């Protein structure tokens, strides 16, 4: 068990290291001088040389990567040369907004999706089951940014129920009002994923011996469904959510841009459009770490719950 844990964590660290090195190499191999991008074309050669020295761009690429990784390991993501602020400050100012968005999105999806899947499984092959089936496939198939645009069109522009853009004026109520539509957009696809998964795993568990035994003992149907089936059927959703954090972060990018919300997605987008390499590196790195950590956690939780998985890595 301990061996599996160590192996899995080492694998996670290795993946992050390689991913970061790949990104760093890509950024620095591409034609176009980062210094010129930062200073503009008319900067004097002396200043260019000075900045290049300061950013350590004269060293060979592997040295730069190792130094960057070393700094990252010490918790330093570098310096934003445009704003003269540390990338840490910038990224961690924006991160909470994205985390609230993702948590609220997945939260309402859990509240709706799991009961839907449960209903569909209990009434298998009924009309409810079919409707839930079609609904969940449709929810999965429609891209998040379209859901975001259409919810703005319907609820903000046409009905004027909720605000369309920004994150509010600072008060809690207005923050929540500004969170409703983005969270709806982020979560809608997940209602579909969760409903399908819960349905499938409930149907699987329904056929198992312990459920038959519970029924044979004359337990109430409710008790059987909630205590003996649903409790087990919910386990795979933990993995799905852990694995899906990448999808969640991706949909957060679109949602934050459509709703002009602060957050890490919009940060990356703006850094990309202004070619602000240090911020791109820092924020992509943070999201990658989030992603790898959550998939690793999901794997570990799974290994605790289901020992059979430990041998497969």
């Amino acid at each position: 068990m301990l061996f599996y844990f160590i192996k899995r964590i080492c694998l996670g660290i290795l993946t992050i290291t390689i991913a970061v090195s790949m990104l760093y190499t890509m950024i620095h191999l591409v034609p176009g001088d980062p210094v010129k991008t930062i200073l503009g074309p008319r900067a004097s050669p002396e200043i260019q040389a000075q900045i290049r020295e300061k950013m350590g761009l004269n060293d060979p690429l592997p040295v730069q990567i190792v130094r960057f990784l070393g700094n990252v390991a010490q918790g330093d993501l570098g310096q934003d040369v445009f704003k003269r602020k540390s990338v840490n400050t910038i990224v961690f100012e924006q991160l909470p907004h994205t985390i609230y968005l993702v948590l609220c999105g997945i939260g309402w999806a859990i509240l709706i999706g799991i009961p839907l899947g449960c209903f569909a499984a209990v009434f298998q092959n009924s009309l409810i089951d079919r409707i839930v089936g079609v609904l969940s496939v449709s929810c999965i198939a429609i891209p998040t940014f379209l859901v975001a645009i259409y919810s703005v069109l319907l609820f903000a522009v046409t009905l004027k129920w909720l605000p369309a853009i920004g994150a509010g004026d600072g008060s809690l109520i207005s923050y929540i009002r500004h969170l409703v539509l983005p969270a709806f957009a982020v979560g809608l696809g997940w209602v579909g994923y969760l409903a399908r998964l819960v349905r499938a795993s409930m149907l699987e568990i329904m056929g198992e011996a312990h459920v038959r035994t519970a029924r044979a003992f004359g337990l109430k149907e409710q008790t059987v469904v909630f205590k003996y089936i649903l409790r087990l059927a919910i386990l795979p959703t933990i993995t799905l959510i852990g694995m899906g954090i990448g999808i969640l972060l991706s949909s957060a990018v679109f949602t934050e841009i459509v709703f002009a919300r602060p957050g890490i997605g919009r940060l990356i987008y703006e850094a990309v459009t202004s070619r602000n390499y240090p911020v791109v590196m820092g924020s992509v790195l943070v999201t990658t770490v989030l992603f790898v950590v959550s998939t690793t956690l999901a794997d570990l939780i799974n290994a605790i719950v289901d020992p059979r998985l430990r041998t497969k890595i």
Partner: protein
Amino acid sequence: MSGAWHGLFRTVRRVMHAPLGALGLFLVVFVLISAIGADWWSTHEPNQINVRAAFASPSLEHFLGTDQLGRDIFSRVLVGGQIALKVSLISIGVALLIGLTLGLIAGFGPRWIDNILMVLFDSVRSFPTVMFALAVVTLFGPSLETIMIIVIVTQIPIYGRMVRSQTLALKNSEFILTEQAIGAGFFRIIFLHMLPNVIGPLLILASMDIPFVITIEAGLSFLGMGVRPPTPSWGTILNDGYSYIYNSPWPVIAGGIPVVLTTLGFTFLGESLRDVFDPKLRKDA
């Protein structure tokens, strides 16, 4: 050849048997026909500007209304569909070929190559797709080719992994071992025995990826990081429409509906194809 046609016909009949499969097939055929014949169906030159007719509602003159420059949205949607399908078919095709090759090498080749490929695949997959896409666009600049590169690079690991696990499962099966004992060459085993067993599930997986690629293309173009204006794309139509959403709802509605229809069509079709070909994967099995 007649056997292949017969098989295709039988598959289509079985797909048509499920209501959602029939709907999916209908939508896919509809989208394909409208994209292929975009030049014939379009009623206006897609980039023709007519500012006096800006923000027109749907009418017989402009079936889906006009955008902020008075361009005919119906024609732009058709040409946009052509671009979306072109991007998805080319990039998925290339990713399939490379993924297939790498997967076969990983599954059949020496252990160390397998290990290296697996770590590489995992590293590519460890970026959330959109973050990776944004980083790549920063480097290469926005264009159709960049989108294709992004799709190819992110899809290769998925196909590669699948081919690898299929190959590994087949590698020690009796008929392959027998072939090897008889003295069959490497290529004979790969092309005659491995490929036919691997290609079916791979094609189903690929057809279910088309909505994903269309979403990526439309999404990046919506962010201004894909197809460059004035070339019409569903994403740029949505982007233009979203900027003027208070002036007219039609551009946003007209730009989004095709995306919804296409993704739903390919998803329904893919699901029922999977049910037909692979009963083991059926969702209620």
